[in-house]
């Protein structure tokens, strides 16, 4: 039984490790066009409803000097990597790219891409920061309609209400399965190591969501009864933009940490919120963003991220939180002092680590993580 699990896991992790090849395969096998979707949230449902394959674009371990033509060194490594890959031609197979304006860097990036990549169809869009007000909701709806029209042109297919509803159902099914998935795998820390957990979640960005959800369902049903947990594991929660590079996750594993939950933009933030299914399709998309609190990239009047993390720690009995700060990502940098204060008040240890997708040396990071492991047990768990 475990063998099937391992095979399924390997299939998905392979996809996440080599997304380029996976996307090309998917284009070939489905005959669909692919549309790149920038972080943080993109209207993937619209792409799907237009009969195309949405593909996540979250950088990678790409080094080079092409992006330096457009971006200073103090630009976040995810956006530098995306630009490097685009200039290198890695994205030539995409029929369009949706770039969203969540932060100042993204605003500039969409402009540079238009300049640097005249052959690429760039679809810039803006998500409303006033997510909960009437004017903001109306704007979002209009923005989805506008992008929908653009996508219809790219795909050559009309986005019918029916198609959009079907796409939304597929995406919400994906979201609810993932919610169950991250809870269930807590009981199998040896199988779902930090790296495996991350790669499994990441694979969703490079596959048809329906197929992906099916694979995750199969993994869930193939799991045997859980073994008793080894005593030495440190359950932790990751928060931030991305839990990469994977070598960072390996350091977690080496030091006996297991990720029991996350608040990463690339991971749980994608699926933790589901809107009312009975709403009309566009309202349903608007509503999901309106409900998505505690995210650094969406204006959050009450600034609920700290409280949310404290709840997560209570629910999961995690020992600590690791704040995965992508270097130069200012929305995340601004949240840190508040989260730090609130977690300290709640007596929850938190480790702040600065990450870049392309790290030359892991040594200081290793020391930090190992020290966290060394000090946690003395707190008497």
């Amino acid at each position, binding site marked *: 039984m475990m063998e099937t699990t391992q095979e399924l896991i390997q299939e998905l992790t392979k996809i996440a490790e080599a997304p380029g090849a996976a996307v090309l395969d998917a284009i070939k096998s489905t005959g669909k066009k692919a549309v790149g979707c920038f972080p943080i949230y993109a209207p993937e449902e619209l792409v799907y409803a237009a009969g195309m394959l949405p593909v996540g674009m979250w950088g990678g371990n790409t080094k080079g000097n092409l992006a330096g033509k457009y971006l200073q060194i103090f630009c976040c490594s995810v956006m530098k990597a995306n630009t490097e890959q685009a200039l290198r031609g890695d994205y030539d197979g995409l029929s369009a790219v949706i770039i969203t304006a969540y932060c100042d860097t993204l605003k500039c990036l969409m402009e540079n891409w238009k300049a640097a990549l005249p052959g690429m169809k760039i679809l810039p869009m803006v998500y409303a920061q006033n997510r909960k007000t009437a004017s903001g909701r109306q704007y979002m709806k209009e*923005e989805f309609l506008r992008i929908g029209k653009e996508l219809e042109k790219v795909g050559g297919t009309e986005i019918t209400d029916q198609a959009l509803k079907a796409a939304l159902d597929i995406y919400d099914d994906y979201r609810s399965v993932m919610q169950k998935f991250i809870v269930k795998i807590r009981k199998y820390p040896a199988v779902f190591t930090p790296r495996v957990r991350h790669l499994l979640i990441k694979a969703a960005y490079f596959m048809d969501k329906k197929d992906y959800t099916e694979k995750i369902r199969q993994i869930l049903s193939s799991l045997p009864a859980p073994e008793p947990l080894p005593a030495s594991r440190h359950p932790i929660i990751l928060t931030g933009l991305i839990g990469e590079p994977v070598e960072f996750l390996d350091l977690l594993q080496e030091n006996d940490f297991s990720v029991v939950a996350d608040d990463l933009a690339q991971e749980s933030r994608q699926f933790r919120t589901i809107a009312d299914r009975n709403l009309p399709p566009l309202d349903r998309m608007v509503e999901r963003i309106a409900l998505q609190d505690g995210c650094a990239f969406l204006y959050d009047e009450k600034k609920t991220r700290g409280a949310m993390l404290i709840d997560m720690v209570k629910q999961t009995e995690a020992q600590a939180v690791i704040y995965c700060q992508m270097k130069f990502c*200012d929305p995340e940098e601004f949240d840190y002092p508040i989260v730090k204060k609130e977690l300290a008040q709640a007596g929850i240890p938190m480790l702040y680590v600065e990450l870049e997708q392309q790290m030359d040396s892991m040594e200081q990071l290793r020391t930090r993580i190992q020290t966290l492991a060394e000090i946690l047990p003395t707190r008497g768990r």
Partner: protein
Amino acid sequence: MEEVKTSKQMLGELLDKHYSDALEAKKNGQLVAWATSISPQELLTTMGIHTVYPENHAAAIGARKCAPEFISHSKGNGYSVDICSYARVNLAYMELLHSEAGDIPKPDLIFCCNNICNTVIKWYENIAKELNIPMIVFDLPFNHEYEVSKQDVRYIKGQFLEAIQKLEEITGRKFDYDKFGEVMKISSETSVWWKKAAMKAMTKPSPLNGFDLFNYMATIVCMRGTTEGMDLFKLWYEQLCEKEAKGLGPWKPGEEEKYRVMWDGIACWPYLGPTYKTLRKYGINMVTSTYPDSWYIVYEQNDLDGMARAYSSNYVNRNLDFGVDNITKLVKDYQLDGIVYHSNRSCKLMDFRQFEVQRRVEANTGVPSVIFDGDQTDPSAFSLAQFETRIQALVEMMEKRKQMAGEK
């Protein structure tokens, strides 16, 4: 005999009054708002809410060389050194509440408009959270198309109306639409006079020393909706006209304006004097910058659509094509010899288009330019020696171009 005040004296007095009025208002229990520098202050002015501008205050702290204390306090609170230094200074000021550079009262209300960057949302969100006060956000979508779209205008106008409602709830008073009309009129007129004065630098030699733009900026931010502000810019304009009529340049008589450049981006406040002196040493007058247009917020009275469009048209909120056209036009209008681009560690929104803008403007105009590394308030991200080397290089390029033009 009553002496005629110079516009500079008046500027100083107005600013002092602006800050003392706000402190006084706070003492008397009146509401105080903290607002971003290019926000629709018309709403607050109409409501009679005293408004101070943390960006200006942070700049003043920087210019008075008081920033390090605040920067290190923020660092202690966990704010990364990579974050905007205005934010780092202000978030510390919020706790320390005193600076030799002058004080502002603690806010009761946060008024935030992201036409200057999304960073202000994060920064102000933290203030509202820490002080537990209401926050009004004006979300002015980034204009990736050349013009402000109708869809955006609808959204922005809707936000104005929602903000008015929220202000009525906060103050418990009705919004006076007649007064609003007046404030709209004054604000637009003040903007016009600000730009008229700044445009005096188009004359060669320029009667305006462009670094004065950095000084007067404080008033266009703080007092755009007031008749005092308007009077100041009228006076400044008249005095510049007088200088112009006499054929006077920016500096002492006989001191030649050899080169005319524009400064892209925010000043390096802690090094305002040294950067100015370095340029002046080489006969460089900074005749214009991106400042004159940033507060040229002009629209018809009672035209909310026009007001929405005007606020969204700030150049950093517009696309790269516009940025290139804008600077290209400045090169022609102001007869520029060169451009100095400030790669400002604090402002990613300005920085991350600079390389491409520089290339294209150079292709359009042939005017040489340099980029230097610096920061608006953090003295540790700037080196004067490096700055001077860049400026020297620019002088060499400008000189060569003049020679070549002479040979033709």
